[in-house]
């Protein structure tokens, strides 16, 4: 009895292994190449540090980011206050640490909603074609015809200033490129044999989309997503600057820069350090995404060729 079970388990495992073997090989090769791309590694390191910061920021902060301390306003950086204090006496360093989580929160939520949304729409458009394709594609055309920041501004203005509304505005603006991306993949694999095979076996349309089309579109989507995490952070900072997004006294990084603007000539540190923080984090994502793209893009890879 036990033998039978063991055999079944082994065969299932073997089957799973053989199914993902090509991907495993790719993964191994990719890891090897990643190790050799110093830029991508640097980026990865920065991302990891940022994530840790976001999770533990509040614990690591030496001072309470919200308490006012009007006696020590506008202090330059020193050993007591690593990045100085702002116009209300709050420690800039602590505010920076505690504000990390907002940036990551926005990034994750915006991408976590807009990517699946866009991908699903793109898969439908590409696979079913016809009127679905036309309607969805014209819709993306319209959305993409706007300079996205302005559309996001308009939506934020209509909804009112708050962090959640900024997320909604960004989601509205962010999904079209993914729809386009997935649609392109769907179109190209729509007529492949395995899709035909699935269809002939009676797989429902939903099943085909979820099990075949979407998984095969993952690669370009992932590349784009890593690069875009940085973009979301920059945009939310930009919207904060314009008055949307997080409201005072929230230590969101974009807000920190905006609040520091008034004192920039007296106390440059209030504005400079949050900006450097954003720069580093986004650079990290961009480096990693760029390195990733260099690897995953078959045209740029060095091909083994013997003739």
């Amino acid at each position: 009895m036990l033998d039978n079970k063991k055999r079944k388990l082994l065969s299932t495992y073997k089957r799973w292994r053989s199914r993902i073997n090509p991907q495993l090989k790719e993964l191994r090769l990719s890891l090897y190449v990643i190790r050799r791309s110093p830029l991508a590694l640097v980026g990865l390191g920065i991302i990891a540090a940022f994530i840790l910061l976001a999770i533990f920021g509040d614990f690591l902060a030496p001072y309470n980011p919200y308490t006012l301390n009007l006696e020590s306003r506008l202090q330059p950086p020193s050993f007591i206050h690593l990045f100085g204090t702002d116009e209300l006496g709050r420690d800039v360093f602590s505010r920076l640490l505690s504000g990390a989580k907002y940036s990551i929160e926005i990034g994750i939520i915006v991408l976590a909603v807009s990517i699946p949304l866009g991908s699903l729409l793109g898969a439908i458009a590409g696979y079913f074609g016809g009127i679905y394709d036309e309607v969805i594609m014209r819709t993306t055309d319209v959305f993409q015809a706007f300079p996205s920041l302005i559309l996001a501004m308009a939506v934020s203005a209509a909804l009112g200033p708050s962090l959640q509304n900024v997320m909604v505005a960004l989601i509205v603006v962010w999904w079209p490129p993914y729809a386009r991306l997935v649609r392109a993949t769907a179109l190209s694999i729509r007529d492949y044999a395995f899709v035909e095979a699935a269809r002939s076996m009676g797989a429902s349309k939903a099943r085909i989309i979820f099990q075949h089309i979407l998984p095969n579109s993952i690669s370009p989507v992932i590349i784009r997503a890593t690069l875009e995490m940085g973009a979301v952070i920059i945009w939310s900072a930009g919207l904060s600057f314009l008055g949307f997004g997080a409201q005072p006294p929230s230590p969101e990084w974009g807000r920190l820069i905006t609040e520091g603007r008034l004192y920039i000539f007296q106390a440059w540190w209030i504005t400079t350090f949050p900006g450097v923080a954003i720069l580093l984090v986004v650079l990290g994502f961009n480096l990693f995404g760029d390195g990733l793209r260099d690897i995953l893009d078959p045209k740029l890879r060095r091909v083994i060729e013997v003739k």
Partner: protein
Amino acid sequence: MEVRDLKVQFFTYGGVVQALDGVSFKVNKDETLGLVGETGCGKSVTALSTLRLVPPPGRIVEGEIILNGENLLEKTEEDMRKIRGRAIAMIFQDPTSSLNPLFTVGFQIAEPFIYHQDLKKKEAQKSAIKLLESMHIPDAERRARNYPHECSGGMRQRIMVAMALACNPSLLIADEPTTNLDVTIQAQILELMKEIQKKHHTSILWISHNLGVIAEMCDRVAVMYAGNIVEIGDVKTILCEPAHPYTRMLKECVPTANQKKGELTVIPGTVPNLISPPAGCRFHPRCREPTDTCKKENPIMVELEPGHYVSCWKYTQKNDKMNSGDD
């Protein structure tokens, strides 16, 4: 031109690919030497090496390529540039991807004239048109204004031939020029090439994996396998009485008209991984009659009969070891 002991390696992420393992052969004046072999055996790399156009991560690590008494591997880049397209010219396999889509056909043919003969653009264009006419291309002047995508496959290949012949090279390297064309066009190109050779006494290095084309075009043939030349001789001997086991099996693979219906003959096994090639003779895993020496040591090229060389232990053991010579 003479190639001596050419070794080319590709330094890739997966390891070092030993693409060419000491290749030696000679192309004499006014003759056509065929270079036969399976895909991946190193034919194109050999051709590119003579022009020093091996793409990175490849590199020529050893050997000599002698043209008119000079070793090409010691020349400066500028000297090589003067040789490419003038002393040695190359025709590539896929004419569609080998022609620049943004320039007219006439311009691309005129370029060798401009850079090697210092002609001005107008004169070069005129020469280009004359060249097209000499290749029996009708309405050459209008043709010259076409873009590559406006021409048919056979026309594109003829344009490539024209580009190569512009400056009357002494050596023409043809890398599978007819593989991508259909049979009728192929016949035209072959005729064209023969005519050219007769007129200009150009030596040709004809690379192909099609024995039929080799038989028609070549005076001598070199057989390549996995980065080695395994046999060289004149075309009749090689095709009728091949010595090397690989050549023999190649010949058996070609289906003949009076063959009985049934399975086609194949050579068992696959081309070896050149990052870790088999020890000794690279062919021994697929050979019908490997000996112990074959598995341990790489065979030396010996002269079986005058002009017929083989690289196989079967024959070296028969002859005196002193008789080994490679030329």
